[in-house]
């Protein structure tokens, strides 16, 4: 949402902003972003639900952000070197809804809860034995091996 406030519907500005995001010189409790916000760093192409959501929301939106995002998605993805994520669509929708950044953040947190709740309910049904433990998934690089009481 902050990117939208800075860049609006100016593609060149978006491209500059994505390639050279403003950096905070001072250290902070938050870590620096490692990928452009609203894009999927591990994606190979825009996922179907993301595209479908963007198309569906753009149809109903009275604002300009979603439609502009739909028209410029590929150019933005090229600048970001990764595909648009659902978080990017959500940010555009909240801009079109005329929410402030803080209001959007709160709504986004609320709307994420059903997914987390579904996981918790499912895991409760499964029981703790079916928790994904990755029993053979950890590789310890510096295992000292069993140490005796004298060692």
């Amino acid at each position, binding site marked *: 949402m902050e990117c939208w406030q800075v860049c609006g519907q100016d593609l060149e500005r978006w491209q500059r902003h994505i390639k050279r995001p403003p950096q905070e010189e001072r*250290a902070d409790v938050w870590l620096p972003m490692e990928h452009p916000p609203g894009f999927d760093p591990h994606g190979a192409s825009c996922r179907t639900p993301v595209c479908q959501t963007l198309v569906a929301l753009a149809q109903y939106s009275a604002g300009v952000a979603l439609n502009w995002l739909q028209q410029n998605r590929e150019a933005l993805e090229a600048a970001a070197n990764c595909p648009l994520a659902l978080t990017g669509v959500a940010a555009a929708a909240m801009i079109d809804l005329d929410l402030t950044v803080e209001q959007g953040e709160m709504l986004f947190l609320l709307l994420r809860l059903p997914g987390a709740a579904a996981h918790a309910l499912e895991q409760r049904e499964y029981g703790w034995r079916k928790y994904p433990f990755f029993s053979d*998934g*950890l590789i310890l690089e510096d295992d000292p091996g069993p140490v005796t009481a004298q060692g």
Partner: protein
Amino acid sequence: MRGPKTLLEHENRWVTNVGAWFPGERVVFRGKDLFHELKDSSWMGLLLYGVTGRVFDEKQLRLFEGIWTICTSYPDPRLWNNRVAALSGTVRSSAGLGIGAANAVSEASIYGRRPDIRAIDFLFRAQEQLDSGTELPEIIHSEIKKYQRIFGYGRPIARRDERIDPLMALANNLGFADGKFIKLAFAVERALLDDGLRLPMNIAVVAAGLAADQGLSRREYYKYMVLSFSVGMFACYVDTYAKPEGALFPLRCGRIRYEGACHRRWERNLNPKRGEERQ
């Protein structure tokens, strides 16, 4: 585009030197056997070993623990973060939720974790500039011009920070009061006062300077401090939990001056679909 290459490389594969549990047998904690090589470690020693991977000596650990003790959140439920812990007790939430939420709130801008990391960050940046020949007053002017403040100097609510004397007394006893960064912290205060800026130092820059002198990096210092307020929070939780539920600072409606939308009347009308009356 990078695609999912990184995810595929990590599928069911986490390479680490942090540690592992061998069920029913042993635990490796950063390359050491927890129940043999680390069993006599203090909790603070183990915390710092987990955060940094380095082993600190007895005197250093007394300093780090002293910083936690003197800089803990005071057990006063009126303070921002303690209010969260106290409210969780008054509504009978769990201690885990209450203390966790109160620590999260402590990542604030005017107290707690952000001043911590910004204060140590300022000391490191200022020292780098001094090393490259810039004079201290110039560093201070430039910081204030750019950010309108220097974290660790000035204090909301009370001017004098009552924690500085006891912490410096401890540092003095341990022989840690003359390190490069703690001296810089005091030098900045003097320069600010000489410049007519009434921004006396607060505990954030004192603790940061002492920790920096022991070799903690910015992020190591931040992580070491994350749980430091917990002690006062527990006290606030215990206090409200022991008293009648819901009784912490209740507000009667008359004390709230509402300035939002006016009272709206809900008209009785008919549901056009079902023909039922609804309110």
